[in-house]
């Protein structure tokens, strides 16, 4: 703030004078009046002086000072402003301001008074530069323009620098408003300097929103930054707003249109429309709307992605239409890569490059290339093809005369930017010749030709390096030649060191001597050199015919490099003792001749002839030097050949010859031969005719004085194979524990290798069930015998089992592998001694047991008899029965113990089997009780035969008659001995028997019909008369092997055994099965015995 001091001088002096003069009482009134007056005067003084002096400057040269006018000052008041510090310079002004020159730094007294107005006070101010404000004038925008295509505003204004006394820094501030000046979107500062003269400044600003979208307004102000000015510096006022607006037509439009932007940048689109926009989308993505003036809307896209060829569509959708624009997001051109410039012909330079990263911009937005050569100032532009590839990025630049160094700059440009790549080349070092053409060959002689070709281009200034490829069968040779370039493009060179009569294929490629690149190979040119005389005689050999009368001369056709032409014929001659005799001329396809020679040692010569001449002769002696010490050796090859070695022999002066043939062929056998130098000690014999598994004979001959001597004879295989057939073997002999096998040799052709042995396998097995599988797998049940003794032709297999089938397999093997197998089944013979022993031992045991049993029985016969056959008391000795003796005697037919089959006619029937023991007791009694009934059925019989019945234990069907009589269903044979004891009682019962006659009567009627009893039985009649067993034995079916069965007491001879003879203690259980036969008629046999034994 300005520091202003105001001093009142004269009024203060007048007040002091009046106060000193007045001293009376009136003085108080006067004093009061005076005071009032003074007060009024003071106030009037204050109101009448200029005040509030303020100074500003806009150019630092003139200060514009202003003050407030006193209240009494009217129109027409003239002020005088004086600067006291200077030489009292005063300035008059009718206004309340005055422009004074800028004062120096420091305080300056300024007085301002009103002229012609005495009594008015003078205002004094102290003025310093610090109290002065520097406020530039409001700037004025000269021009505001817009580039709608780039959305750029261009601002132009004048800095009015001429008003400033010195160089100053000026800061400009520009503000940009949108939305009808309501929104400041940009406030930027711009620094300039003023240099004492007016300067028009330009400033551009690119809007992120298309300028068409809304009105843009611009204002500007400035600030002078003078470091030497100590006063207050302030911004100028804003300039008036300048507007930029787009005058839309009636159609809706979307902006920006067809813009190309960098991928990843942000962009704003707007739709200038009078319709209501419903939505907006970029591609398929909806975007939020930003409302602008009116119905205009905008969308903002961040980080836009790369566009397709046809661009990215941005659309705004209204009620019934879609409006849009297309944006092309891509990349600026990459730096051209691998820029290379070279020439094919030194007439034109071709520069190629790789465009690098794709820009994603096509069509008119695609990258354009310009090739600029700085030395000549020439340039060529790249004409784009529709679908460029990397190979198509090339430009041709016409070479300039006498210019070898070229500095190329390739500029790449697209709407998003530009890039460049440079290359400096010496074009004579970047020659990449085209393909040589028109290759021609001309003869010089049989070993040299002239080669000519055409190479497009003007290479007169350089030398060419050309490579000639000389290709013949199985051989490729490349020769480099350097030739001076010519203008007419025709070149020729001589090529020597060729072979006569050889087909060569030539091709050529060239480069500059300062090598850069080879041209591509020319087309091939074939050429046959002319013939020359054969360089060597043919390789010869001789064999005597099998009868020894003819000598067969063989020779090999000359190789093409030695024949030197087409061999037409061979001349064969022989010489003996310096006397040469030409024998025959053999045309070419034939390579042997048969000569009739005696046993003299002839020298045979063979000469090959072609159209140019004859070869040197090949000579061989007809006779062979004998060798007594000759052994046959074996050798095996290496698959494709066989290696033969021998010791060095200095006596061999010529060479060694190895001949070979198939061993299965007849003599003279010659497949081929090979000559090796005399200093060699080994040779590898190889031939396409060799086959694996075939036996060959190799003969090594040594040569001394043109005579050959057989040194070694070798049989061998190139490669051994497994035998193709199995050895044929037979079984010569078999026994119970061994087999003798014999086999035959395998023929050599089928052996296919040197036989190393046989493998013999055997195992137990039948023909259909046993198969030896996996012979090599080491099965434990297979026994293997390896027979390596090749002279062995038989094999005995021992320790076999008798009467057992064995599976025998035999196979041969070589070093090439195992041959096929041949198998046979053999059954060993039965072991008869063992069988006999197996039979005899049980028989012997049985006999021994029988004998021992018999001995024991014999020794114990008394005991047995006592036990089983106690003596039966003779009834005749019984006095109680003596009365019957007469009766018995009178009956001559009465017999006892008749050993006939007996048919018991009475059985004891028991109700239950469990009561058997008791029944036995009661049985002794019960038959007596029932006897009367039984006896009523029995027929009176005066002749009683008691037959002996062996102890047959069989089921017996009860006699129906017995059943009727007994009324029981079970039959039990009662122990005879137990039955016998109660014999005492029957005697009492016999007395009461009404039927019984005198003496003893048996309790049952035994119809004896036997007629076969012999007289021996009669002798016992007395002993048996009168005794009858108490049991009804009718039901007994006693069968003996030699007696018929007795089932019917009436019709059959019934013999009744003595109770003592019935040794069975078995109950006879009536058969439950009514259908079962009464007797199976098996008779008395061991079988029956054993079968019934379990029933005991």
């Amino acid at each position: 703030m300005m520091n202003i001091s105001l001093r009142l001088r004269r009024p203060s002096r007048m007040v002091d004078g009046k106060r000193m003069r007045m001293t009376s009482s009136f003085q108080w009134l006067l004093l009061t009046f005076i005071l009032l007056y003074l007060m009024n005067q003071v106030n009037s003084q204050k109101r009448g002086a200029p005040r509030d002096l303020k100074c500003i400057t806009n150019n630092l040269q003139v200060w514009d000072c202003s003050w407030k006018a006193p209240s009494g000052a009217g129109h027409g008041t003239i002020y005088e402003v004086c600067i006291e510090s200077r030489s009292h310079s005063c300035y008059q002004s009718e206004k309340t301001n005055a422009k004074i020159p800028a004062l120096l730094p420091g305080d300056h007294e300024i007085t301002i008074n009103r002229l012609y107005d005495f009594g008015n006070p003078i205002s004094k101010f102290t003025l310093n530069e610090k109290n002065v404000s520097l406020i530039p004038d409001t700037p004025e925008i000269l021009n505001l323009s817009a580039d709608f295509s780039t959305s750029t505003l261009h601002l132009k204004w004048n800095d009015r620098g001429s008003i400033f006394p010195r160089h100053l820094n000026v800061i400009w501030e520009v503000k940009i408003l949108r939305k009808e000046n309501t929104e400041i979107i940009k406030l930027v500062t711009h620094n300039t300097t003023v240099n004492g003269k007016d300067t028009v400044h330009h400033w551009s600003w690119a809007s992120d929103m298309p300028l068409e979208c809304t009105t843009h307004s611009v204002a500007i102000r400035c600030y002078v930054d003078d470091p030497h000015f100590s006063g207050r510096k302030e911004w100028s006022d804003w300039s008036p707003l300048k507007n930029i607006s787009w005058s839309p037509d009636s159609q809706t439009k979307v902006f920006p249109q067809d813009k190309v932007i960098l991928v990843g940048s942000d962009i704003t689109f707007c739709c200038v429309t009078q319709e209501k926009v419903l939505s907006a989308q970029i591609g398929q993505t909806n975007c939020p709307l930003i409302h602008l003036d009116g119905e205009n809307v905008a969308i903002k896209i961040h980080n836009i992605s790369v566009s397709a060829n046809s661009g990215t569509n941005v659309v705004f959708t209204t009620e019934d239409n879609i409006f849009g624009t297309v944006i092309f997001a891509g990349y600026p051109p990459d730096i051209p890569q691998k820029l290379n410039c070279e020439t094919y012909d030194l007439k034109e330079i071709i520069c190629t490059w790789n465009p690098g990263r794709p820009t994603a911009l096509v069509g008119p937005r695609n990258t354009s290339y310009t090739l600029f050569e700085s030395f000549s100032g020439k340039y060529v532009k790249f004409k784009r093809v529709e679908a460029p590839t990397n190979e198509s990025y090339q430009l041709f630049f016409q070479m300039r005369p006498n210019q070898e160094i070229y500095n190329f700059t390739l500029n790449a440009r697209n709407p998003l930017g530009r890039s460049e790549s440079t290359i400096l080349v010496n074009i004579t070092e970047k020659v990449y010749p085209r393909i040589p053409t028109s290759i021609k060959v001309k003869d010089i002689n049989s070993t040299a030709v002239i080669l000519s070709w055409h190479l497009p281009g003007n290479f007169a200034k350089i030398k060419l390096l050309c490579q000639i490829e000389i290709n013949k069968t199985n051989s490729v040779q490349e020769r480099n030649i350097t030739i001076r370039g010519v203008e007419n493009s025709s070149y020729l060179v001589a090529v020597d060191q060729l072979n006569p009569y050889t087909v060569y294929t030539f091709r050529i490629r060239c480069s500059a001597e300062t090598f850069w690149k080879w041209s591509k190979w020319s087309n091939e040119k074939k050429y046959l050199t002319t013939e020359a005389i054969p360089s060597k005689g043919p390789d010869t050999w001789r064999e005597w015919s099998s009868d020894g009368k003819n000598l067969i001369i063989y020779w090999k056709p000359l190789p093409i490099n030695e024949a030197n032409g087409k061999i037409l014929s061979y001349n064969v001659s022989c010489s003996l003792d310096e006397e040469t005799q030409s024998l025959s001329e053999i045309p070419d396809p034939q390579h042997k001749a048969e000569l009739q020679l005696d046993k003299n040692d002839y020298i045979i010569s063979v000469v090959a002839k072609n159209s140019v001449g004859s070869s040197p002769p090949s000579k061989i002696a007809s006779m062979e030097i004998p060798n007594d010490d000759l052994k046959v050796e074996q050798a095996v090859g290496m698959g494709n050949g066989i290696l033969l070695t021998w010791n060095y022999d200095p006596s061999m002066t010529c060479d060694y010859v190895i001949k070979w043939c198939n061993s299965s062929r007849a003599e003279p056998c010659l497949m081929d031969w090979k000559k090796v130098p005399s200093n060699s000690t080994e040779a590898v014999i190889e031939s396409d005719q060799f086959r694996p598994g075939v036996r060959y004979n190799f003969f090594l001959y040594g040569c001394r004085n043109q005579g050959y001597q057989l040194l070694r004879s070798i049989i061998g295989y190139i490669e051994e194979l497994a035998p193709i057939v199995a050895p044929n073997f037979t079984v010569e002999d078999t026994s119970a524990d061994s087999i003798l096998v014999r086999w035959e040799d395998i023929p050599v052709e089928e052996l296919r290798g040197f036989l190393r042995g046989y493998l013999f396998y055997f195992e137990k097995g039948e023909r259909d069930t046993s198969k030896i599988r996996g012979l090599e797998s080491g099965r434990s049940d297979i026994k293997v015998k390896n027979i390596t003794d090749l002279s062995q032709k038989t094999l005995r297999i021992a320790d076999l089992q008798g009467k057992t089938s064995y599976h025998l397999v035999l196979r041969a093997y070589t070093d090439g592998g195992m041959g096929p197998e041949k198998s046979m089944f053999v059954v060993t013979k039965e072991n008869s001694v063992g069988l006999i022993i197996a039979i005899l031992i049980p028989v012997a045991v049985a006999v021994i047991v029988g004998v021992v049993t018999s001995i024991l029985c014999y020794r114990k016969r008394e005991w047995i008899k006592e036990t089983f056959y106690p003596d039966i008391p003779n009834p005749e000795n019984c006095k109680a029965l003596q009365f019957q003796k007469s009766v018995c005697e009178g009956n001559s037919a009465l017999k006892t113990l008749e050993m006939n089959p007996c048919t018991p006619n009475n059985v004891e029937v028991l109700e239950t089997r469990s009561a058997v023991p008791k029944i036995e007791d009661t049985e002794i009694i019960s038959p007596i009780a029932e006897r009367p009934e039984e006896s009523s059925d029995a027929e009176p019989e005066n002749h009683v035969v008691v037959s002996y019945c062996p102890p047959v234990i069989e089921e017996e069907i009860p006699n129906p008659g017995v059943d009727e009589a007994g009324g029981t269903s079970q039959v039990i044979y009662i122990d005879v001995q137990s039955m016998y004891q109660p014999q005492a009682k029957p005697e009492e019962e016999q007395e009461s028997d009404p039927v019984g006659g005198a003496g003893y009567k048996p309790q049952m009627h035994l119809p004896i019909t036997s007629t076969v009893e012999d007289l021996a039985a009669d002798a016992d009649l007395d002993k048996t008369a009168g005794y009858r067993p108490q049991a009804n034995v009718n039901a007994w079916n006693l069968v003996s092997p030699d007696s018929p069965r007795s089932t019917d007491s009436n019709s059959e001879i019934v013999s009744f055994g003595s109770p003592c003879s019935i040794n069975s203690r078995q109950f006879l259980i009536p058969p439950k099965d009514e259908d079962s036969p009464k007797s199976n008629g098996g008779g008395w046999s061991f079988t029956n015995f054993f079968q019934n034994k379990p029933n005991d």
Partner: protein
Amino acid sequence: MKVLAAGVVPLLLVLHWKHGAGSPLPITPVNATCATRHPCHSNLMNQIRNQLAQLNGSANALFILYYTAQGEPFPNNLDKLCGPNVTDFPPFHANGTEKTRLVELYRIIAYLGASLGNITRDQKVLNPNALSLHSKLNATADIMRGLLSNVLCRLCNKYHVAHVDVAYGPDTSGKDVFQKKKLGCQLLGKYKQVIAVVAQAF
């Protein structure tokens, strides 16, 4: 004017290679003389029908190929972007006389041919790699040229009409890319619609 130089004019020069080519062709009086450069085919109507059928058969595929090549959102907003809203498209009355129908067909094919030339030119710049679209556009333009020649032959031979006033579609050369895409799509949509009616009428 660029479109006339690049697309329409060559087409018209080929089709009307005679004195006064390029000027509007009024329908000549019936008795006016009419001459063609080449003798007309004996069975013109069959050829015309076949060519129409051929165009009708390929129109939809061309339409699909076109709007697919323009990118989104064209395929999903066919009604608003590719609707057949072509205001100045020549009319066609299927129930008219053969002569009327042929004259209308001539106008339609001339209109379509010129528009197709514009579309082809625009797409070669905009979609240089869409070779199948270019191929189909070229093939369609070729058939249209043949059809136009045949129709002219027929009109000339039978109805002695040598000149027909034709109108062309809007020039797209000065329009922005989106307008080119949209106008092309609308034209092809209209073409697909119209060619079906025309083919049916013949």
